[in-house]
């Protein structure tokens, strides 16, 4: 993965770049705050942060249109923010409060938004892949041109149900984009210890599904590849695979001591490939923004995130009667 960093000349407009910057930064700040609240004991259980991977979801959301669906694993905060869900509702779910997206009953791993067509938030590795193809099935059944984005990890890519789904998605030409977020680790297992071939995107070949590897640390590369995949799916040509080569900076979850990689490895990616710094450099070098402009954005985002944290602490715990609701519709 050769990242061209800011050196690459970009035709992307100033507004677009600023939008990516803002959205990626919001995810990062939100996740840092979530980590902090976890440390304070306000968030419990499993909490998987998305820091480092922001360009993937921000770049792909820029290719989606009204009615498109998205679904992912437990590492879902970034996806929710990027599709327009309210940071307050997400943070309040993290703290297990009544104003959370699931009224506090789902937690970090299980949130949904019917309105934003965000279908979760799934804790079983790989389960979201056929579910995502099912969303695409519904689009095809209804004869609309919407597509579904099914995100999953490099570790999940070894689940049998993924290949069952590839087969049916190709057979039935389902408009689903399989987004493999290859952050190179599944918990403590480096990809080379679990995965027989280094390029997961080629695994679609056996099913006739086109795929490509994408620099997932470069939001512009993600957007470009996403546009191609979306066009393919929307035009009825069936599924598409995008393998996003990315990296997670934090542990697998909050309680991961991360002894399976060196501090230097993480530091190197941070310094050389950070997706936010990349756009920041493009903005400054292209004279689209000044340091001052960016500081103002930083400040604005910090205040949004702080507000969400405040909201999430002030929201009451769910009423005890909620234990018995939402079991049956």
């Amino acid at each position, binding site marked *: 993965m050769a990242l061209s960093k800011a050196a690459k000349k970009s035709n992307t407009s100033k507004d677009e770049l600023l939008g990516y910057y803002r959205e990626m930064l919001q995810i990062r700040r939100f996740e840092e705050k979530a980590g902090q609240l976890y440390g304070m004991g306000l968030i419990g259980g499993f909490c998987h942060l998305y820091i480092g991977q922001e360009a993937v979801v921000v770049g792909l959301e820029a290719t989606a249109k009204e009615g498109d669906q998205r679904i992912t694993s437990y590492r879902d905060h970034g996806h929710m923010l990027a599709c327009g869900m309210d940071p307050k509702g997400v943070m309040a779910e993290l703290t297990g409060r009544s104003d959370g997206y699931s009224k506090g009953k789902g937690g970090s791993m299980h949130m949904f938004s019917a309105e934003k067509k965000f279908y979760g938030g799934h804790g079983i590795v790989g389960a979201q892949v056929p579910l995502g193809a099912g969303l*695409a099935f519904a689009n095809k059944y209804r004869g609309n041109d919407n597509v579904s984005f099914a995100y999953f990890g490099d570790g999940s890519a070894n689940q049998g149900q993924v290949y069952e789904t590839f087969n049916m998605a190709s057979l039935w030409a389902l408009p689903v984009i399989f987004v493999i977020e290859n952050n190179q680790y599944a918990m403590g297992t480096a990809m080379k210890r679990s995965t027989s071939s280094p390029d997961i995107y080629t695994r679609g070949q056996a099913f006739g599904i086109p795929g490509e590897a994408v620099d997932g640390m470069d939001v512009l590369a993600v957007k470009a590849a996403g546009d191609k995949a979306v066009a393919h799916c929307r035009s009825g040509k069936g599924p598409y695979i995008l393998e996003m080569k990315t990296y997670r900076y934090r542990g697998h979850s909050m309680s991961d001591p991360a002894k399976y990689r060196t501090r230097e490895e993480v530091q190197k990616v941070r310094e050389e490939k950070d997706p936010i710094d990349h756009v920041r450099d493009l903005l400054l070098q292209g004279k689209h923004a000044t340091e001052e402009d960016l500081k103002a954005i930083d400040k604005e985002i910090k205040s949004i995130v702080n507000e969400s944290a405040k909201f999430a602490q002030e929201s009451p*715990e769910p009423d005890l009667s909620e234990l018995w609701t939402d079991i049956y519709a």
Partner: protein
Amino acid sequence: MATNILMPALSPTMEEGTLAKWLVKEGDTVSSGDILAEIETDKATMEFEAVDDGLITKILIAEGTEGVKVNTPIAVLLEEGEDTTVEAPVAQPAAKEVAAPAFIAAITTTEVRPAMEEVPAGTKMKTLTVREALREAMSEEMRLDDNVYLMGEEVAEYQGAYKISQGMLDEFGPRRVIDTPITEHGFTGIAVGAAFAGLRPIVEFMTFNFAMQAIDHIINSAAKTLYMSGGQMGCPIVFRGANGAAARVGAQHSQDYAAWYAQIPGLKVVQPYSAADAKGLLKSAIRDPNPVLVLENEILYGRSFEVPDLPDFTVPLGRARIWREGSDVTIVSFGIGMQYALEAADELAKEGISAEVIDLRTIRPIDYETILTSVRKTNRCVTVEEGFPVCSIGNHLSAKIMTEAFDYLDAPVINCAGKDVPMPYAANLEKLALITTKEVIEAVKSVTYR
């Protein structure tokens, strides 16, 4: 602005930890993501990163300190002018008192009401096999609602492995009657996803033995999403197919899953015996906004029953049916178990024992009231089912009866079930493994002290 850096909780169970090592010192400038310290939790040694940029002005807890409680200030950070951090944690609202005893509340879900007949007196009847009844149910519902579709192995061109869907491809076409590859895990996940998006799939499992490959999606994806989403996203889907022992097909193809699925909140489970119930329950299942399992039986598929000749006949979920009234003992069964229950009741009548026979029909939610009312009248109960005996439906009913009608019982409840063995192939052994009418008769005699 100066803020305290607090001792973090670095695992779900951590309450205190050792501040093993500081990687910064007073006077250092740190930025977000820098490692501040190493902290030993109850599980491992973890690195603790800075969230905000700023200057470390003071270290409050020396390295090597053990037993530092979570949220104790460990250092002071001076940030550059910006309002950033959440200061002290806002006190968590104290948890209110625990709700009513969960056990009672959890299982008393059906309201009290008489087990009434669904069909008005004088209704014209027609004779249908269970197979035809199931087909009519699906076809009628598919005519009414374009969102309903059928998918499964061999359901379309082959006309159904058990010919349940015969003719449906012709009527509804390949968009709505869909042959799948033999990939239960995958196609069940796809169907559940389609249901999240608002379609109403009917998933046919060739038999429920193969649904074990798909049970993760049935339970984790279909049953739990409504709850996990705080009521936002439901899963209107039907999983149906042959369940239980067929004949001479050996251990992997002969198992009753009633008790498995009955345990799961979020699922509804029906197991019809008659053709009328098969039709009426399947139609209700298709209309229900929740995931419903319809556990059919291969041996019953070809059996004929009287079915109301009505344009839209449904049977409500969650209601048992009293097949035969009696006064000496209550026999509770469901599915093919009803065959043994009814045969036993006939035999017992000849000996002057009057058995009340209740068909549960729905295994979840169970119509407890009909059972309890009957047991309070007869004071004796025998349960009959084909499944394994450990943690069976009968075990559960016994507990319920003991809890709610103990004083009415004149004898212990007896559970007749399949034997605690994998299903053998040999004809004589298979017979021995299954429940028999004779065993039901003996159980009734035992509880009536005859």
